[in-house]
């Protein structure tokens, strides 16, 4: 019953340490992982933001540069035409062969113009150099003609026109005298397309132009052809470059998971679109984010492992301390109990001793008086002496009890001091010799003179030896003579001292042997022993850091062996070759 309760207690304690372990681990992990995650997340967010804006900035620059490049090309073509209109009169250009020379000169370096023609204010084609038979065409109704007549410069969208091939024209007008005429050139579509499309942006990047109606002005790399309608949503004209990141085709923008740069070319009012897959554009950022995550994960795992170890270690220390504290508490409690019992016992013993002494003197007086008087009644005489003997026996018994009580209570001021054990044993033997002699017991001492000075508690040790010797003397009851052998040995290897108290008394039976240190266990007749002596010895020796063991044979004797540690002081080796070697 008691052991099962103890077991449950231990289990509960284990449980509480498990709880403590989990709590500490949780706290440690939270305390270290939360800041780590915060820092990691913050750094990651900042880095992502920074890299993204850099990537977007780069992308924007690229779009801007490309726009300028295409614009410059268009401007250059129109400037060339305008220059021609100012440097050459209509009459000159219409003269046979002149336009051909001009066309050849214009295309000398780059084949950027497919054909060139001069048109009068009525829309009639006056002169034409190029691969198509367009001389007889009249453009009076064409949209571009009206446009150029009003604005002076016109760049068309891509159109099929008479030649049934995607192309666009640049036309400039010139007022010469009262008459306006137009110089019109077709830009080489291949050259222009190469110019626009030949920007490679990664694996997934593409560049194309759409007009304000959303018609492809150049062929995109993926899905779509020139002159086809694009799914791109055309936004209002803006001066600046606009870079947008699209996730999953929002609002039917025609883009999904892409970074898209848009810039308007003006003229001719085309939208330059440069786009790249999001994953490719931000591959580097994604990669570093992954690396960050892995790093964070490894950190978190190592923190977890470290905190597990640290917590286990700490809980181990706490458990150890707790056990020690509990042990001390139990000892303290036991000591406190014994002390109060001791005080009570001493008080009772004192109070009893005096009346007992008076009783014994009164008895003696009666005996004296009785011996001096002459009484003839033999029966009375017999009864008288029997009663007097009984009074003496019972008084002695009382005395024995009070002495035991007093001896038990003699736990005076304990303090750790230097103890010369041999001298100490000599004194104790001296004290007890009188009592032993009256029981026919003599002391034999065999003291090791190499014994070092101990750091121990003399008053407690005295109690132990008085108890052991008293027991040893009592063990000889019924035997006419006997001896108590006390020996001390210096245990060099164990840095301690062993004291043996061996008697030639009645011995202890095997079944009693493992109970003799239990409190209130006694084999002495009722009224003779408290059953506390050996229990106290055990506690004291344990508290002093030592060990007490017992060896006994029924009817042959008992030997108690006490090991005491030196604790602090060590003796100087005396003529000991082994130690110096």
């Amino acid at each position, binding site marked *: 019953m008691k052991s099962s309760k103890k077991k449950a207690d231990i289990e509960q304690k284990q449980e509480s340490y498990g709880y403590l372990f989990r709590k500490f681990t949780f706290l440690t992990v939270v305390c270290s992982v939360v800041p780590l995650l915060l820092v990691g997340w913050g750094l990651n967010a900042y880095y992502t933001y920074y890299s993204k804006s850099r990537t977007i900035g780069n992308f924007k620059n690229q779009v801007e540069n490309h726009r300028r490049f295409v614009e410059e090309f268009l401007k250059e073509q129109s400037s060339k035409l305008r220059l021609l209109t100012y440097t050459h009169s209509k009459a000159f250009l219409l003269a046979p062969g002149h336009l051909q020379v001009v066309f050849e000169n214009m295309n000398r370096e780059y084949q950027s113009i497919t054909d060139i023609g001069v048109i009068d204010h009525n829309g009639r084609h006056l002169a034409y150099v190029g691969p198509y038979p367009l001389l007889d065409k009249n453009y009076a109704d064409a949209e571009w003609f009206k446009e150029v007549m009003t604005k002076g410069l016109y760049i068309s969208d891509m159109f099929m026109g008479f030649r049934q091939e995607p192309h666009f024209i640049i036309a400039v007008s010139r007022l010469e005298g009262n008459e306006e005429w137009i110089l019109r050139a077709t830009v080489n579509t291949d050259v222009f397309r190469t110019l626009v499309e030949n920007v490679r942006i990664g694996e997934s990047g593409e560049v194309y132009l759409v007009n304000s109606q959303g018609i492809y002005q150049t062929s995109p790399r993926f899905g779509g052809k020139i002159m086809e309608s694009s799914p791109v949503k055309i936004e209002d004209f803006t001066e600046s470059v606009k870079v947008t990141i699209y996730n999953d085709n929002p609002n039917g923008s025609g883009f999904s998971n892409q970074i898209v740069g848009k810039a308007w070319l003006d003229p001719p009012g085309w939208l330059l679109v440069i786009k790249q897959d999001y994953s490719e554009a931000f591959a580097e950022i994604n990669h570093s984010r992954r690396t960050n995550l892995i790093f964070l994960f490894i950190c978190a795992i190592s923190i977890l492992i470290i905190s597990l170890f640290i917590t286990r270690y700490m809980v181990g220390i706490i458990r150890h301390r707790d056990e020690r504290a509990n042990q001390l508490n139990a000892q303290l409690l036991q000591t406190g109990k014994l002390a109060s019992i001791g005080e009570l016992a001493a008080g009772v013993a004192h109070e009893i001793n005096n009346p007992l002494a008076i009783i014994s*003197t009164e008895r*003696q007086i009666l005996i004296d008086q009785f011996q001096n008087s002459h009484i003839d009644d033999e029966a009375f005489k017999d009864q008288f002496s029997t009663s007097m003997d009984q009074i003496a026996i019972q*008084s002695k018994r009382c005395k024995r009890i009070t002495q035991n009580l007093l001896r038990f209570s003699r736990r005076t001021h304990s303090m750790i001091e230097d103890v010369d054990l041999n001298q100490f044993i000599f*004194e104790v033997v001296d004290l007890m010799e009188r009592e032993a002699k009256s029981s026919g017991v003599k002391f034999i001492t065999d003291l090791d003179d190499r014994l070092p000075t101990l750091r121990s508690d003399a008053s407690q040790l005295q109690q132990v030896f008085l108890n052991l010797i008293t027991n040893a003397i009592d063990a000889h009851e019924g035997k006419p003579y006997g001896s108590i052998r006390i020996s001390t040995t210096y245990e060099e290897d164990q840095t301690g001292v062993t004291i043996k108290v061996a008697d030639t008394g009645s011995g202890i039976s095997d079944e009693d042997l493992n109970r003799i240190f239990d409190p209130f266990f006694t084999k002495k007749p009722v009224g003779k022993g408290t059953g506390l002596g050996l229990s106290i010895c055990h506690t004291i020796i344990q508290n002093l850091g030592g060990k007490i063991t017992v060896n006994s044979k029924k009817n042959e004797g008992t030997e108690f062996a006490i090991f005491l540690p030196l604790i602090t002081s060590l003796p100087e080796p005396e003529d000991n070759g082994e130690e110096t070697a």
Partner: protein
Amino acid sequence: MIGSKILFVDDEVVFASNMAKLLESRGYWVKAVNTGDSAIQELEKQDFDVVVLDLKMPGMDGITTLKEIKKLDLFTQTLILTGHGSIDTALEAIKLGAYDYLTKPCEIEDLVEKIEGAWGKKDEHVKKELNENIQKIVESPASVFNLYPKREKNK
């Protein structure tokens, strides 16, 4: 030795007078007192062979009384009879010069035996000093006037 003068000191009045009675019936001359102070006073008034002293007494306790007795520097021997049961205190008393100790309650025969021992020791001391004095007087007869100066002073 029949006829010894004994001072019995114990705060238990009945015990002291009983003991006195018992010892007197065994041929001793006994004076029983109940405090340390009165014991010292008695010792100053007259010589005793043996003082039987209780350790635990109200007022001046046994140890203090013993110290006072020792100050008087007498041949008187002191025997401790204690109900205190404390071997430590008894041992201390022996260290202070008490002849021996007994614990209460004790058999009258044990006490008589101890008293005899104590008396014997006192006798030994007296004889020793007497011999020394005789020796001194033999060596220089004039020194007879300087003998027992301490005794004179104490009285």
